[in-house]
């Protein structure tokens, strides 16, 4: 019999949200991330341990499978939902200070661009990597990022752009943010974005996939 943390980890890896969820079919009528996380907390397991030994490793497995094309966007979203169900039970401990996250990650799709899938995947992977994520949505102007930096000093910014025509706005946003907050670390991503473009516009890091963003953030946090 596996430990409860291993069970939670499996639920997140395969996207088993709760008892009622029929997915994945081979875990039907089993308890999901929701029930098991509640149980773990009721048993007195440290929420930090749930995060470090169940959520974070499970989401890392998911991210790596996605990078290798072993799973696809729908599977990622199932895992994210299961992680979200688990996180609901841990959230009160963040507020009370009993559990800690690695930092604040503010993410959004740049002005003029309405694509949200890639940005959402990064947001959920980073949250699953142990960070507090503030998702500003799509078509986000520089001023909104500035507001977030003021509210959360030391936060890290993630910018997404899916069109060559909106990449230009990514450059503008980086320029404006770096002018006022030169210390702020900025990650960028999206289909047309490249490492060269990242260097050109003076952003700190480019990742072609969500797991790369998580790995980079971990180097900052440690």
């Amino acid at each position, binding site marked *: 019999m596996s430990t409860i943390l291993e069970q939670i980890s499996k639920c997140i890896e395969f996207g088993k949200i709760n008892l009622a969820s029929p997915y994945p079919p081979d875990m039907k009528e089993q308890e999901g991330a929701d029930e098991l996380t509640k149980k773990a907390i009721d048993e007195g397991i440290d929420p930090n341990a749930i995060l470090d030994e169940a959520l974070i490793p499970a989401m890392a497995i998911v991210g790596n499978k996605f990078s290798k*094309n072993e799973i*696809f*966007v*729908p599977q990622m*979203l199932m895992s994210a939902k299961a992680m979200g169900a688990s996180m609901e039970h841990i959230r009160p401990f963040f507020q009370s200070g009993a559990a800690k996250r690695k930092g604040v990650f503010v993410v959004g799709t740049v002005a*003029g661009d*309405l694509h*949200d*899938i890639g940005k*959402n995947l990064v947001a959920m992977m980073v949250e699953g990597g142990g960070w507090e994520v503030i998702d500003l949505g799509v078509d986000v102007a520089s001023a909104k990022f500035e507001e977030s930096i003021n509210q959360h000093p030391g936060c890290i910014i993630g910018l997404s752009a*899916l*069109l*060559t*025509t*909106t*990449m*230009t706005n*990514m*450059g503008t946003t980086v320029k404006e943010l770096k002018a006022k907050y030169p210390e702020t670390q900025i990650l960028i991503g999206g*289909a*047309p974005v*490249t490492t060269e*473009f990242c260097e*050109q*516009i003076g952003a700190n890091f480019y990742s072609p996939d969500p797991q790369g963003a998580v790995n980079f953030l971990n180097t900052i946090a440690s």
Partner: protein
Amino acid sequence: MKTILKGRSLEVEINTEGPVIIIGESINPTRRKKLVETLSAGNFDFVHELARVQIEAGADVLDVNVGFPGVDDELLLPETVKSLQQEFDVPLCLDSPNPKAIEAALKVAEGKCLINSVNGEEKSMEAILPIVKEYGAAVIGLVMDDNGITHDPEKRLGVAEKILNRAGKLGISPEDIVIDPLAMAVSADPNACKVTLETIKLVRDKLGLNMTEGSSNVSFGLPNREILNNAFVTLSILYGVTCPIANPVKITSAIRAADLLLGRDDYAMKWVEHFQNTQ
């Protein structure tokens, strides 16, 4: 309903009764590093190659998007249009979020272009529709507005009506409005394509307009994209799409098949011709 587009001399008719007209999507810098490099160097050879390959594969109209960081598309779009029209006669679909680039291209373009695109946002309609009228172009109307993208087909129809009415007030005829019902990724929302198909049906039944769609969007984030794109374009044609934007190299067979199976290809002439051309 017939939307007429023109190249230098070649006329293309998009007809709600069919057959389907293919707008080739490949002149677009996203994921085409070589296009960015060659255009940055003022070299149009690769654009011409993309045009030739698409026309040979069945494209009737070519979408032209040359927007990328570090380039002034108010200069580059008209230059690309001129260069393409020296070599090719197919009508062009001018694709830019910048109304000034569109207008600059219309000034030099011969024939009658399709503009990609206007949407239901006040700002967009104010900027684009007067240009459509002034240059006698046709325009793609995206069914989103100041409230963003709705997932309610009736509301998407409402945005289409709004664009149609606003265009009508400026004297643009319904023939020159081509609606884009917004094809979105089914990987993120299992109902995404159903919403699009229902929108297509509503626009056809209530407005009777020609319709395009970005057929390759639906398969984002999934394996075997080509099969999904082909299945979706086939369903879309059944519901009322008349001029999808897609990669003709990959989608023409599915489109010719749809036309044939819907009784729009007498003696299977286009189907057989496509088979012979791609042997």
